[in-house]
């Protein structure tokens, strides 16, 4: 190892301290700059989502999904498989979901028959399957964090993967495009008619007022209203 003169040593140490202090001072704005990406990442997902979804008066519809009148959606994956889930109307109708009960892998589900169960506020609401086939995967994230069905019902909030030869034929009868938009508008109108005048006035101000539209209509019998709309 080489030896250092006392002056060289001092000047070197000075530079090292300057570098260390500069690092600490620069790290703060650098950290703030990089961390701002968290908000930007969330913002970046919004326009991407608007490309794949369309907003009706109150509810969002995914452009690439097909809808069962029981407010379940299906997205075909090839000719024999589909991802299925609950649409935006369903989750806004029932309100915050505490638990989702999904069928096990290997279970056969039939179009229009109850396939999964939502636990909301101590009550249970069944939802029907949009297609017929065998469940080959379930979304564990939706079971662990049911809130994902609310935050992203058409992507991260998928519930089941269904496979089988009857998937595509049964999906053919589902609602898509303009037909789906007209259907959701009719469902919205039907919902509006049931609301009390007071709540109706509040709704005219724009936007959907609360999570749990059914409960807003009738606090006691909201589950019956929900079942009526979800055809279960």
């Amino acid at each position, binding site marked *: 190892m080489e030896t250092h003169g006392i002056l060289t040593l001092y000047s070197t140490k000075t530079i*090292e301290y300057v570098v260390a202090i500069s690092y600490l001072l620069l790290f703060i704005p650098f950290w703030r700059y990089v961390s701002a990406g968290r908000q930007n990442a969330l913002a970046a997902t919004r326009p991407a989502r608007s490309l794949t979804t369309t907003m009706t008066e109150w509810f969002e519809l995914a452009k690439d999904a097909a809808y069962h009148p029981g407010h379940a959606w299906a997205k075909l994956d090839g000719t024999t498989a589909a991802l299925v889930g609950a649409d935006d109307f369903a989750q806004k109708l029932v309100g915050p979901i505490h638990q989702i009960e999904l069928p096990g892998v290997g279970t056969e589900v039939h179009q229009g028959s109850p396939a999964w169960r939502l636990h909301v506020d101590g009550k249970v609401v069944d939802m029907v399957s949009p297609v017929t086939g065998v469940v080959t995967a379930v979304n564990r994230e939706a079971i*662990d964090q049911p809130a994902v069905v609310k935050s992203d019902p058409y992507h991260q909030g998928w519930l089941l993967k269904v496979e089988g030869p009857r998937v595509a034929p049964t999906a053919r009868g589902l609602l898509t495009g303009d037909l789906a938009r007209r259907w959701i508008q009719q469902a919205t109108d039907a919902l509006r008619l049931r609301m009390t005048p007071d709540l109706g006035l509040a709704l005219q101000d724009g936007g959907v007022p609360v999570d749990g539209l059914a409960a807003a209509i009738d606090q006691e019998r909201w589950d019956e209203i929900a079942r009526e709309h979800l055809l279960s």
Partner: protein
Amino acid sequence: MSDTALTVPTTGSSWFTEKILMGATPREYARSLVTPFNLFAAVVLLAGAVAIIYRFIYGLGAVTNLSQVNAWGIWKGLNVITGVALGAGGYTLAAAVYILGLKEYRPVVRIGVLAGFLGYSFAVVGLLIDIGQPWRIPYPLVYSFGVTSVLFEVAWCMCLYLTVLILEFSPAVYEWLGWRGIRERTLHLSVGFVAFGVILSSMHQPSLGALFLMAPSKLHPLWYSQYLPTMFFVSSAVSGLTMVIAVSTLARWGMRDAFSPSLLARLPHLSLGLGRGAALLLFAYLFLKLQALIDGHHIDLLATGWGAWYLLEVIGFVAAPCLLMAYGSHHARLGLVRVAAFWALAGIILNRMNVSVIALNWNVADRYYPSTGEWLIAGALLMVAIVAFRWVCYRMPVLFDHPEFEAH
């Protein structure tokens, strides 16, 4: 391979057909193996196997360009020193999720642990081929301790950490095999494994840097520094995060059918988060490099050819990917973050190769250049790791959650 990882196995099929052939008949499975990638892999593995046999029959001298002066070649530099750095994904991700509580990254922990296990296996197998008497590899563990050697610590740490990685990954194997009981018992101990793994990594990652502190006259002064252990440790954390971004990107591109829809949907968000962490660590690493340069009193050497090479490493492969990663993270530009991850990884590889091979023995007349045989064997070992990664990911729940088990 086109089989989907989510397909339910055919009822009544044999264990071998169900677990190994993924429900296909032997004929169908053999036909599915005939792909351009598999053919390329077969050629690389065959060439490597021939070189390995040749090395064990005729000795190191017949296959390598190693000598008494240049005793360390690419098998140590690339397979061991670099392989261990690239295998750091296991401890960084496990520490982030299980110790720091960043639960949202749980879906990519197994990618990190598997990449770590393969990286360390790559290192150990490379070492077995490299050392003159491979049957003596257990000596530092049981027979001749040599407690004053840094390699003693490296040998023990790597052996223990490889065991920890196997234990950390074992729940995925148990899920694949359907062994519920042992899986639950292993998961109960997982926080202990993770903590032990982080401690071991924080010991042997810097120790690999400390190895070169014993060679002040051999390593070029621009790379020789008392900060080597710290720099190795910090850069290994960078490597761990960027490796998970890179591996998941490549897997998404090459084996999309092995992913669960849920992980595919979350991958962009997770990659951006890992990118933010990597940008901050790269920033710290850059300043450490600067501090080491000043502390080394060799700024004048920057004006030489070696200096240009050093600046290329620091500016081209540390500062540049750091800025790109920061820019990509700030603007949520996933493509830029992915490019920066590959770039930063290239920088880590370059750094490890510079320290252990290129700038080592820089001042001797007899310069070392790897032989074709050395490249063939190193390439074959890398290919084994890639093939093993694909084989495991198509069968075991790494890129998807097993439908019959609760996520842990």
